């Protein structure tokens, strides 16, 4: 996540060839089989989350059956049942909703806050940038991300939204730094100077000219940060600070499974595998996007 992604300025693509540039990008992405595989799995996971009520054979919370508690995988219960006799497959399917939204919302928060701050800091520079904003990001980055999230959860209390906020705050400094570094690399470019000479306002230059040109690295970082956010959310729920029972979450499922390792090992196989597959696919997409948007980084 901390990889520097400062690409030298690339010339702004002329509007006329935008379509063919898009097609070219798509061709490059499609050539990367692993990335396509990752994107397909991510898409399937999103569909699974959206259509959870259709896919899950049982209600994840209310369908408990003590007579069927702690049963191994079977035709009725594909992933087995938990200590309350709830269907684990249904709980894993519903858990995708929480994990995926945690990834998207916390990265969305980091973008929403980090992007404008990074743009302003890199564009205007000066005391605010170097003394205030950079030192604040230094301070936030010195605190281990998970420890900061835990400390915030300690005060705010447990819960999905609070966990997402805590993770979002933890991710923000990296976005500020990356956007700022990109703006610094581009601000002296000809196209920025030309826009200035034509009398474009600063806001217009930042959002209409700079932003499209630095979008590539931002997209790559956002996708890789989503993978980190999914793991972080699972980690917080594993510790008991994310989604609270009886709501299904992959991280908290592992926490409860740890009490049944000898008698019901399947309880820990599937939720963990779900986190793994999700993070792996998002990482594959992120790597593919990096190769596509920055061909020089290929094979690295």
């Amino acid at each position, binding site marked *: 996540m*901390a990889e520097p992604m400062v690409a030298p300025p690339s010339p702004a693509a002329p509007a006329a060839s935008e379509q063919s540039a898009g097609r070219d990008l798509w061709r490059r992405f499609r050539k990367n089989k692993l990335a396509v595989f990752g994107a397909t799995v991510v898409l399937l996971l999103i569909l699974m989350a959206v259509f959870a009520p259709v896919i899950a054979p049982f209600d994840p919370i209310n369908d408990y059956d003590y007579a069927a508690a702690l049963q191994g995988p079977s035709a009725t219960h594909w992933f087995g049942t938990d200590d309350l006799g709830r269907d684990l497959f249904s709980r894993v399917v519903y858990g995708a909703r929480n994990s995926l939204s945690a990834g998207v919302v916390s990265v969305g928060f980091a973008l929403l806050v980090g992007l404008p701050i990074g743009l302003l800091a890199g564009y205007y520079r000066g005391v605010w940038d170097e003394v205030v904003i950079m030192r604040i990001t230094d301070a936030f980055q010195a605190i281990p991300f998970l420890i900061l999230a835990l400390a915030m959860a300690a005060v705010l209390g447990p819960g999905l939204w609070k966990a997402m906020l805590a993770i979002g705050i933890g991710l923000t400094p990296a976005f500020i730094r990356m956007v700022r570094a990109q703006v610094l690399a581009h601000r002296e470019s000809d196209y920025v100077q030309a826009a200035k000479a034509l009398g474009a306002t600063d806001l217009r230059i930042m959002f209409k000219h700079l932003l499209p040109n630095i979008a590539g690295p931002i997209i790559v970082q956002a996708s890789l940060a989503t993978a980190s956010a999914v793991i972080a959310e699972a980690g917080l729920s594993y510790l008991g600070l994310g989604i609270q029972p009886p709501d299904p979450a992959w991280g908290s499922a592992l926490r409860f499974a740890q009490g049944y390792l000898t008698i019901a090992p399947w309880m820990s196989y599937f939720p963990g595998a779900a986190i793994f597959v999700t993070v792996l696919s998002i990482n594959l997409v992120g790597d593919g996007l990096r190769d596509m948007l920055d061909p020089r980084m290929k094979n690295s």
Partner: protein
Amino acid sequence: MLAYLVRRIAMMIPILLLVSVIAFSLIHLVPGDPALVILGPEAPMETVEALREQMGLNRPLIVQYASWLGSTLQGDLGRSLVDRQPVAKLIVQRLPATMELAIFTFLVATVIAVPLGIYTAVKRGSVADWVGSVAALFGQSIPHFWLGIMLIMLFSLNLKWLPSSGYVHFWENPKANLLAMILPAVATGAREAAVITRYLRASLLEVLKADYVRTARAKGLGERIVILRHAVRNALIPVLTASGLQIAGLLGGLVITETIFTIPGFGRLIVDSIFQRDIPVVQGAVLFAALMVMTVNLLVDIIYSLVDPRIKLASGKGA
């Protein structure tokens, strides 16, 4: 070198001050009375008032911060709300286990990553490269707490080779201590290994294109010597920086590892105090964690200059 060190340490001060503001503000994040937040809404009024008095919450915010900072600078991080122990003492007590685990994790990561990174770079494009790179991608994506649980299941419960918990101090029982460290170190180290492998491979591929590598080959040196003596040495420099940056993530990861394997370390202290709403301990731990991260990064910078003589730690600007 000395001038650089002084300047570098001086730069840490404002950042630590900001961290202290963050740690201090934690308790004031929620609207309302922090004493009520800690004790819960059902606490009797007298208890709330007593806690408010004890934590000095009745004073203006800036006075509270100044007095907290003042005692923090003297090494007094306050007292735990749970057992009245000094926070600094609690942290120091828990530190050895975490340090040991961090060192073992880093060892595991290096032992896996260095050969794998070199091999995949040298055999670039081969099946071995593909397998190694996919393994690294897997390692980077696997949640280490799940890996930890799977390792417990295989090596502790099924094979009964290694303990899943039961940490003892090294000087009490070295063998038991080392055995108890293996699984946690592997669980946490897998991810670090994956990240370092990917960095090393990329860095080595870059270095192998360099002129001096061609020269070394041209003058008839064996491939082994070219790779190990010339290329790897230079490729390790960016990898070192990357590993330094990993330390914050590693420290965060250890919090969960210590919970899984019930290791009485620094991370476990944080988790326990969070559930007990022991805010002074949480604040102290945040501050201390940041101090550790910054110190490690400083050490990495120093090692960096020793490994690469080209880098002069200038005392001037832009160093």
